[in-house]
């Protein structure tokens, strides 16, 4: 029989229970979704890294000649080095009209920094005419195994036969440089050729890099390498590679999203459950008394009400797990949000074990809430329980001592007293509105910030039409000639160490202003001749400010440069920027690697001096696809925020309506019209909404600021909130609240005046 009652009780409070289920489902859904996302990233990438022998360390020759087989043996001889390989990756142009380029890769060891064959013939280390091409690049450009492909290198053409289509973890995120946010396989891909081919083309077997698999700690490894090679060399850890760092960055984002957002939802769900169950226990008081008087044991009654909560928690969790899988799939599938970013063979989804523990804990917590709210009532004697509980007496509120009180309308007084009498309900509504506001402001503010970032970085900072990458073999005179012919500005990058941290020293000569620098404030700043500009991350990490001095040492040399900091700028890379004049006065040796010009990409004449050309549009295009993914996420969040608002407000609104049923009936009897009563109910909700928005707005800004630092510190973005965001988030929140209030106010037409008057308050 109690089972039947369970079903009917559920029916009676279905608005509350369904809203509870939705909240749990969304909370658990986001929790499961994002935690699965980061866990899946880590699992799938690490199995990919494992499979293709992703290197833990890269020893870079820099400006020195390079490494030979004997250097490789010295490294392999280090105790603790699992395996190592001579490695080369160089950007080459593919013969054709639109200057596609490939990162051409050679590795001498198939266990290190190798690839996974997706289709076609297996790798042959002795092949002198074979190339193994990125399958994504092949798909975008309609290449098939067996087709021919012609590469340009130092003015010569090399025609190779495509043997196989591949993926490689070295190019998990295949971008030409960190200035481009998203891969664009139509323009840029990667390919492997054999060491035999490399020897044939260049005539020697010297490689610029040794890739190493080893679990030796960073400091020890660097020391051992320097000893083995008897000189200071630049050693990059895998954290300094785009592929690994960005993949782990995505995973970190998932962790942050998976811990911050669900907490907002679940916290509100649990608090709403506490409020609801407390009310239900109070309303079911008589029934509990009857059951007890009939002789049901406390345990049965407790079980009855606890199982109601268990049911709600369980149904919500099951739905939530379903939503979670969808969220994860939406991000983690080859055609999904992450599919345009990661180029990997396996997209199997994994659920971390702690997710199950947390879900069980949430369900247990819900059950406990039901248990505790009934337990208190049960401790009384049946006769006491059967006597209706007198409502908590109203108290004077602070405002009444002021003169404003007397001037207030009856409705305002009634609503204010109600708020003070049912603090927990009012507080929950407040939280719901604030939560909705936080999510809306956070989501749309993120978009504003990103857009402002694009504007300032790509519109202001990148004032050129094309960036010409100079080939390594170009002579100084060739470069001079090219600079003159395209009337360009130029830049160079020197890898340096700042207190054992690898950063890049960027040197610019920008008489035309084709590259601009953005100060932390967002203002443009000129490069002063006698000073260095550090990026915000370096400024933060090393606590340097304007006027301080920093010491940089270039790799492979014993020199040290002492630079005076002239300012802090925003930069995509972790870098120190100086002008060419300052570099010369310090005696820094550098070689121009990029020329920035207003000449369009298609009009830059091909030349052996040029490695590749990137137009601003190429970069903008990659940014557009990034923004598309971002916009989808933001829509998802806005929908979640609105659902949160609707659910919380509807739940609490219904509760408030039920609690004041008698009062509303009395007002109706006395002669208040339906509309007047509706406006009273809406008025209270709007008051709470207004307060909730006042709290939610700064809170949303705080959360956004936190997320910007946690999710995207590498972009050094400044929080921006557009007027549209203010308008939309305020109007949407107020709109949601108004809509829900009206829905509830509509119920007052159904008040049964006659029945209500028969019941004692």
């Amino acid at each position, binding site marked *: 029989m109690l089972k039947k009652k369970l079903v009917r009780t559920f029916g009676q409070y279905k608005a509350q229970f369904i809203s509870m289920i939705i909240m749990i489902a969304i909370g658990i859904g986001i929790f499961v979704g994002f935690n699965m996302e980061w866990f899946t990233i880590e699992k799938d990438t690490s199995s990919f890294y494992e499979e293709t022998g992703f290197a833990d360390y890269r020893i870079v020759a820099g400006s020195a000649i390079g490494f030979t087989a004997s250097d490789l043996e010295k490294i392999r001889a280090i105790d603790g080095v699992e395996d190592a390989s001579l490695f080369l990756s160089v950007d080459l142009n593919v013969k054709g009209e639109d200057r596609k380029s490939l990162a051409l890769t050679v590795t001498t060891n198939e266990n290190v920094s190798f690839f996974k064959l997706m289709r076609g013939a297996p790798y042959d280390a002795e092949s002198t005419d074979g190339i193994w091409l990125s399958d994504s690049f092949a798909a975008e450009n309609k290449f098939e195994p067996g087709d021919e492909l012609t590469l340009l290198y130092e003015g010569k053409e090399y025609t190779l036969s495509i043997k196989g289509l591949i993926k490689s973890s070295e190019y998990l995120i295949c971008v030409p440089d960190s200035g481009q946010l998203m891969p664009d396989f139509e323009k840029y891909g990667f390919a492997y050729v054999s060491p035999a081919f490399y020897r044939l083309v260049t005539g020697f077997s010297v490689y610029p890099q040794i890739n190493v698999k080893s679990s030796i700690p960073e400091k020890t490894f660097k020391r051992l390498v320097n000893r083995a090679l008897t000189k200071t060399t630049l050693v990059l850890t895998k954290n300094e590679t785009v592929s690994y760092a960005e993949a782990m960055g995505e995973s970190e984002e998932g962790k942050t999203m998976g811990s911050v957002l669900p907490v907002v939802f679940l916290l509100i769900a649990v608090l709403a459950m506490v409020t609801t169950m407390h009310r239900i226990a109070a309303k079911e008081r008589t029934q509990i008394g009857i059951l007890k008087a009939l002789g049901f044991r406390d345990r049965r009654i407790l079980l009855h009400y606890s199982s109601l909560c268990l049911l709600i928690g369980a149904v919500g969790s099951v739905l939530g797990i379903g939503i979670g899988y969808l969220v994860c799939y939406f991000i983690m599938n080859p055609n999904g949000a992450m599919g345009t970013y990661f180029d990997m063979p396996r997209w199997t989804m994994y659920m971390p074990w702690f997710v199950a523990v947390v879900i069980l804990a949430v369900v247990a917590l819900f059950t406990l809430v039901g248990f505790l709210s009934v337990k208190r009532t049960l401790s009384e004697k049946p006769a006491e329980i059967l006597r209706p509980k007198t409502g908590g*007496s109203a108290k004077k509120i602070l405002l009444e001592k002021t003169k404003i009180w007397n001037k207030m309308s009856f409705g305002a007084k009634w609503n204010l007293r109600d708020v003070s009498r049912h603090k927990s309900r009012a507080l929950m509504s407040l939280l719901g509105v604030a939560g909705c506001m936080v999510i809306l402001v956070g989501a749309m503010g993120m978009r504003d910030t990103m857009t402002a970032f694009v504007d300032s970085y790509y519109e202001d900072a990148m004032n050129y039409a094309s960036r010409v990458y100079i080939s390594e073999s170009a002579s100084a005179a060739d470069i001079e000639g090219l600079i003159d012919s395209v009337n360009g500005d130029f830049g160079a990058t020197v890898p340096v160490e700042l207190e054992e941290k690898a950063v890049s020293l960027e040197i610019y000569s920008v008489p035309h202003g084709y590259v601009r620098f953005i100060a932390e404030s967002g203002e443009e700043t000129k490069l002063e001749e006698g000073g260095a500009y550090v990026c915000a991350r370096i400024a933060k990490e090393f606590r340097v400010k304007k006027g301080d001095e920093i010491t940089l040492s270039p790799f492979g040399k014993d020199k040290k440069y002492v630079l005076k900091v002239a300012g802090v700028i925003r930069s995509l890379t972790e870098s120190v920027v100086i002008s060419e004049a300052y570099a010369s006065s310090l005696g820094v040796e550098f070689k121009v690697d990029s020329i920035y010009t207003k000449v369009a990409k298609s009009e830059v004449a091909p030349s052996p001096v040029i490695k590749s050309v990137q137009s601003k549009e190429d970069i903008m295009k990659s940014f557009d696809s990034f923004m598309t993914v971002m916009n989808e996420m933001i829509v998802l969040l806005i929908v979640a925020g609105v659902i949160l608002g609707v659910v919380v407000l509807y739940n609490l609104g219904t509760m408030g309506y039920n609690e004041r049923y008698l009062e509303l009936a009395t007002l109706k009897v006395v002669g208040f019209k339906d509309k007047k009563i509706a406006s009273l109910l809406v008025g209270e909700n709007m008051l709470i909404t207004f307060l909730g928005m006042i709290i939610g707005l700064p809170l949303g800004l705080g959360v956004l600021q936190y997320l910007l630092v946690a999710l995207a510190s590498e972009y050094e973005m400044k929080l921006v909130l557009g007027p549209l965001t203010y308008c939309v988030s305020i109007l949407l929140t107020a709109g949601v609240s108004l809509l829900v209030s009206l829905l509830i106010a509509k119920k007052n037409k159904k008040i049964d005046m006659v029945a209500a008057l028969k019941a*004692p308050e």
Partner: protein
Amino acid sequence: MAFIELKGVSKIYKSGEHELSALDSVDLAIEKGKFVVILGQSGAGKSTLLNLLGGLDSPSEGTIAIGGKDISKLSRDELAEYRASTVGFVFQFYNLIPTLTVRENVALVKEIAPKAFPPEKMIEEVGLSDHMNHFPSELSGGEQQRVSIARALAKNPEILLCDEPTGALDSDTGVMVLKLLLKMAKEYEKTIVIVTHNQNIAKMADVVIRVKNGKIRSIEEQMPLSADEVEW
């Protein structure tokens, strides 16, 4: 024509398949300024009668004229207006708003009744001036009922409708409340209709209407006794 006139009034409650006839073609006329008691057992139909008079419900058949105006076919809003301007209610369980003070409970009728009396004056009349700023929960049952009488009269209505006004009170307090009710009704020249199953209250009435099984059994006019003459 009498002030209150019911002609062929029936009320049938439908719940699913079942039909329950609460009132069966009732004819009734009540003169202005009279003190009327409707007597009957529970389920006799007396509360239904009161609800119809008060505009809380509409009859299934028949017409109800109050002061010459038919209220049986009014819309929801028109009924609300009728209740606001013409009727004052006093209920067994007082039905005060717990979150409003005594003054505010009475003052709230100012929002809807065009010719309302000042709330302070009505509260003074029922002798609760000292409790003006108290909440209902801080008052005794008798005091709460006095507030509800003040609220009913503050509207300055034509009719005062009372449903078992002493039902939740002890005998002495009940008598006191009745006395107040009658005094106020006389003073402000209101028609007063009390629904009760208490025979003693009937002795104080000008007219006693007995209801049974949804029909009027008798209508007696009598010489009323004062409250002090009735043996409680």
